[in-house]
């Protein structure tokens, strides 16, 4: 009996290969986008985690030099011998690779790569290897004379070794970069200032810095992934619903023949699970391709935006296979529950005629409208009262889902109004028929709404960001040339050399410290024409530059201002005895750190040992100055950068962000188009009985096909029109809520009507393409089929 039932169930798919394809393709697409995005995210997170775990960053407090970048080894010994449990770290760059030296005996995080790399302590100390992943190892191979051990878990572009080796390779004998403070400190420890007054303690960041910074970026990706998954599940739901409707007769027959209901439901459920696994498998493979093609751009974006190192190559992790298959099975379960329940509840002797699949069920619709209103209400409340990044994303979710659920009602009302104004029988029938089809199409239309809204929202955000940022770069990159020197002596000589040749010399000088309890930078400004003319403020007090120049006031960036809850007029403590009022708040896009800016004199008083080695030079003849610096002063070409180069680099970072966003936009839109196509296709087959009377009354098949196409266009246009305000609301949430929470700055919102028009056109094209084939099939329905409707008395 079981075998016979299975054969009967399978025969349905054999006769409807397109439905089977829809089901599998829907599952595969949903799984692909979900697992692709997950893959990108987990690869990036794995990169941060290895970096943080091996170096103890984020987890532990650190001691940093107050001025300069090195700590003498003697200070480390003095601290240890005073009872400070600290571990030394040596850091430097070799060919773009961050080389980190640790002492496994005193590192609070334990042995770091020792153990991970399958090596124990004596072997590590004896062989003195350098740990790196394969790509980094290849870069270093010819550059260093130390054995390189491939440890895949090492963070990208990072190499870890013993402190002795690091000092030797970096030529920094006797010098340390920073000290990691163990969380367990003994009793009777003297204060830090008594042992090492030149060190500043920086509190642990609670999780890796980079991870926190990039969270919002990854949340954006995840939101995209979830959205695509939801759209895919709409497709699957449609396909399963249709298949079950069509098999009602078969199910009745099987049950009449004695098949127990429980076993039948079990068999149908297992059938779907098999499809879910197949779809999931294809999806994970596709997802891998999506991830592999996106990852290099994502990696480049993250590196450019946050300096976060992410491996550009994808590793196959077993967890993706599992989560991909899992989400596929879960999605199928969600999509099929309703259908299986209705099979279970179907009375044995009920009419086996396929119900009009698309009949609206008043009760369900009322619930849907109520849920939608509830979600929109929550969204409104969150917008007004919510705080924090999670709230921002909660707001997004409520807004999007609420709007999607409201879509059928809004469309229904609109269509009813159109029907009222319709003239002529055909037009009235068209609108009535469109309304009648709405429930069947509503899932696909919701998918289109979400896809379009996401497109509008995200591209508005990214474009606003780019526009603001470009303007900001123009203000900020005022100097024509940027010059790096190797040391303080060369810096002094350079200042003397260029003084007669430039209109202004702007040293780039800052120290990392804590302000208002937050990690921040204090930046030194040589206040002159450049600052006074170019700097723009978000908020400022009168005579702002005069007061700052006199050392009577300080400027802060927006990040510091928002995080510390300070604004113009508030006081900021720069040191225990130096408290100054804030005279201005400036935008500082792209900088994750809080920053305070003070006059050069005040800075020198606060940090007498800090010295600048980088300079911005103002000149009317950049090429001439550049030549002079190389020829007469002996600077290398690499140590001089011109404005255009920096600007180009900064913008290229945003171009990459764009690439990622654009790729995801196109993918979600395609999935939505596919959903419409499949819905129309399934409806087309069922609609023959509804169209036959219209045909019998004189509408040609060709005309009917045209009307089908027009219907698709009308629905797509209506949906697109609704998607626009939703997308703009989404953009507002992203810019004014999520961005502020995630980055600490608020972006002005710009509107790009032309982009939206193009997007609307795309949606229209997608709808027409999706409707074309079903309409064509309708137009070519053999008259015999249409006649059969009457013959069968259906």
């Amino acid at each position, binding site marked *: 009996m079981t075998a016979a039932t299975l054969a009967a169930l399978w025969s349905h798919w054999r006769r409807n290969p397109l439905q089977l394809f829809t089901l599998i393709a829907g599952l595969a697409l949903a799984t692909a986008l979900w697992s692709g995005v997950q893959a990108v995210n987990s690869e990036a997170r794995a990169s941060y985690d290895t970096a943080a775990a091996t170096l103890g960053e984020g987890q532990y407090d650190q001691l940093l030099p107050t001025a300069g970048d090195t700590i003498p080894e003697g200070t480390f*010994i003095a601290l240890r*011998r*005073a*009872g400070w*449990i600290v571990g030394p770290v040596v850091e430097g760059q070799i060919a773009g690779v961050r080389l980190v030296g640790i002492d496994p005996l005193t590192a609070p995080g334990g042995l770091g790569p020792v153990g991970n790399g399958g090596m124990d302590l004596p072997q590590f100390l*004896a062989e003195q290897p350098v740990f790196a992943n394969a790509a980094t190892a290849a870069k270093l191979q010819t550059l260093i004379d130390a054995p390189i051990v491939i440890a895949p878990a090492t963070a990208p572009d990072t190499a870890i070794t013993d402190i002795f080796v690091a000092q030797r390779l970096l030529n920094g004998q006797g010098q340390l970069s920073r000290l990691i403070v163990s969380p367990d400190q003994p009793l*009777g420890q003297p204060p830090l200032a008594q042992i090492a007054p030149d060190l500043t303690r920086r509190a642990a960041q609670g999780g890796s810095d980079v991870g926190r910074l990039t969270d919002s970026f990854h949340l954006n990706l995840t939101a995209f992934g979830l959205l695509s998954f939801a759209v895919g599940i709409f497709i699957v739901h449609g396909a399963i619903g249709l298949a079950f409707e069509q098999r009602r007769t078969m199910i009745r027959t099987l049950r009449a023949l004695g098949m127990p209901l429980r076993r039948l439901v079990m068999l149908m459920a297992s059938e779907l699970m098999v499809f879910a696994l197949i779809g999931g498998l294809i999806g994970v493979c596709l997802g891998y391709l999506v991830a592999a093609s996106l990852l290099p751009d994502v990696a480049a974006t993250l590196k450019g935006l946050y300096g976060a190192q992410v491996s550009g190559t994808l590793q196959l992790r077993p967890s993706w296979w599992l989560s991909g298959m899992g989400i596929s099975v879960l999605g199928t379960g969600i999509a099929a529950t309703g259908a299986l329940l209705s099979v279970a509840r179907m009375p044995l002797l009920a009419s086996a005629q396929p119900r009009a699949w698309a009949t609206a069920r008043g009760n369900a619709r009322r619930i849907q409208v109520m849920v939608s209103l509830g979600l929109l209400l929550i969204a409104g409340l969150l917008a007004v009262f919510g705080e924090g990044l999670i709230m921002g994303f909660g707001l997004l979710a409520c807004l999007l889902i609420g709007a999607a659920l409201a879509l059928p009602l809004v469309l229904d009302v609109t269509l009813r109004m159109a029907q009222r104004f319709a003239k002529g029988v055909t037009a009235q029938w068209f609108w009535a028929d469109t309304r009648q089809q709405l429930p069947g199409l509503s899932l696909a239309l919701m998918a289109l709404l979400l896809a379009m809204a996401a497109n509008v929202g995200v591209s508005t955000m990214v474009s606003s960001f780019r526009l603001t940022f470009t303007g900001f770069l123009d203000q900020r990159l005022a100097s024509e040339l940027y010059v790096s020197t190797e040391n303080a002596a060369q810096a002094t000589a350079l200042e003397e050399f260029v003084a007669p040749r430039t209109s202004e010399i702007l040293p780039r000088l800052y120290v990392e410290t804590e302000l208002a309890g937050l990690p921040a930078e204090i930046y030194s400004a040589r206040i002159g024409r450049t600052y006074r003319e170019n700097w723009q403020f978000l908020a400022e007090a009168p005579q702002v530059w005069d007061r700052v120049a006199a050392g009577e006031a300080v400027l802060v960036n927006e990040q510091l201002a928002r995080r510390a809850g300070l604004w113009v007029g508030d006081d900021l403590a720069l040191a225990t005895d130096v408290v100054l009022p804030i005279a201005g708040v400036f935008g500082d896009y792209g900088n994750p750190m809080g920053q305070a800016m003070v006059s050069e004199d005040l800075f020198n008083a606060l940090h007498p040992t800090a010295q600048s080695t980088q300079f911005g030079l103002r000149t009317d003849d950049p090429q001439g100055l550049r030549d002079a610096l190389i020829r007469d002063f002996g600077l290398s070409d690499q140590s001089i950068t011109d404005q255009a180069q920096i600007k180009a680099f900064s913008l290229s970072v945003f171009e990459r962000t764009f690439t990622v966003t654009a790729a995801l936009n196109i993918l979600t839109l395609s999935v939505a188009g596919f959903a419409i196509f499949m819905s129309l296709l399934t409806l087309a087959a069922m609609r023959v009985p509804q169209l036959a009377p219209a045909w019998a009354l004189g509408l040609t098949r060709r005309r009917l096909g045209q009307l089908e196409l027009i219907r698709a266009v009308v629905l797509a246009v209506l949906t697109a029109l609704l998607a626009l305000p939703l997308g703009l609301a989404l953009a507002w949430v992203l810019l004014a809520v999520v961005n502020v929470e995630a980055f600490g700055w608020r972006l002005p919102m710009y509107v790009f009507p032309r982009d939206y028009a193009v997007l609307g056109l795309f949606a229209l094209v997608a709808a027409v393409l999706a409707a074309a084939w079903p309409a064509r099939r309708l137009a070519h329905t053999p008259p015999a089929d249409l006649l059969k409707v009457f013959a069968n008395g259906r």
Partner: protein
Amino acid sequence: MAVKSFLFALALSLTAPVVALAQGFAGMGSEAQGFATPSLGTPLSFPADHGPHPDYRIEWWYVTANMTGPDGTAYGLQWTLFRSALAPFATQGWDSPQIWLGNAAVTTPEAHYTSERLARGGTGQAGVIAAPFEAWIDEWHMRGDTVDTLQLRAAGTQFSYDVTLEAQGPLILHGQDGYSVKSQQGQASYYYSQPSYALSGTLTLPQGEVAVTGSAWLDREWSSQPLASDQTGWDWFSISFDGGEKLMGFRLRQADDSYYTSGTWITAEGDTTALPDGSFDATVLEVSDVGGRDVPTRWQVRVPDYDVDITVEALNPQAWMDMSIPYWEGPVQISGNRTGVGYLEMTGYD
């Protein structure tokens, strides 16, 4: 006291990669060839031998003390500095093959506080100088002009101590003039002690400071291969009887359930007699559950030659040293035909 050394050596030196290690440091063919081994008839020389012997694989400076507070409460403390060499030489800087390990503990009847430190030789973070004597790792130290008067300090997250030790008698050489045999196959170490320090100072505990007085025992031992390969652990006793006599005895457990025992009987005047294999007898009377391990915490100790038949009982059975090399070490109280206090160390029960 060889057990610790045994375990320490095992952890740091006797494992397979050590061979590679030794080769890495000095290009030597095998571990055994590079290090010096103790030989019978080499007289110890002071103060030089208070200092480190980098050409031996392992070495320790080991102080245990029994103390009482003003209210009569008994306490114990431990201060240990181990040296383990990855290669038989010392250099300045981070590539020194000398590794230092510090363990410190304070035991009360209710609690056992421990702390551990690790350091590399050659940087100044840890080391030992023979004269004027100083042994240190981080802020922990044991120092004085000579080993007769020492200041001893250590601290952990929950405890610290600062005590002064005054020697009341001469140094004691174990075995044959300091040459202490550890197995029938002839494994041996250099081993001497100062068993009769008078102690006074302060313990800082979570409850507050406690002024203490008592007695302390310093053990010094160094070797390259202290135990035979079939020895699985040991039980070591240092006992100060109320009459002024002292007893050091240990039992090395062998894989076939037999024992190798050794010891030293010390008179109140500081005269010593080595106890040959078999004349020191220790039998387990009671086993305690220490964090899931079965550890003997009450013993019967007999030395018939000196009319010793005593019960040795841990002040706090939970004196487990949960360090990178785990072992049990804590103060004990003596009853039976003699009374007194002492320290018990047991390894190989983890």
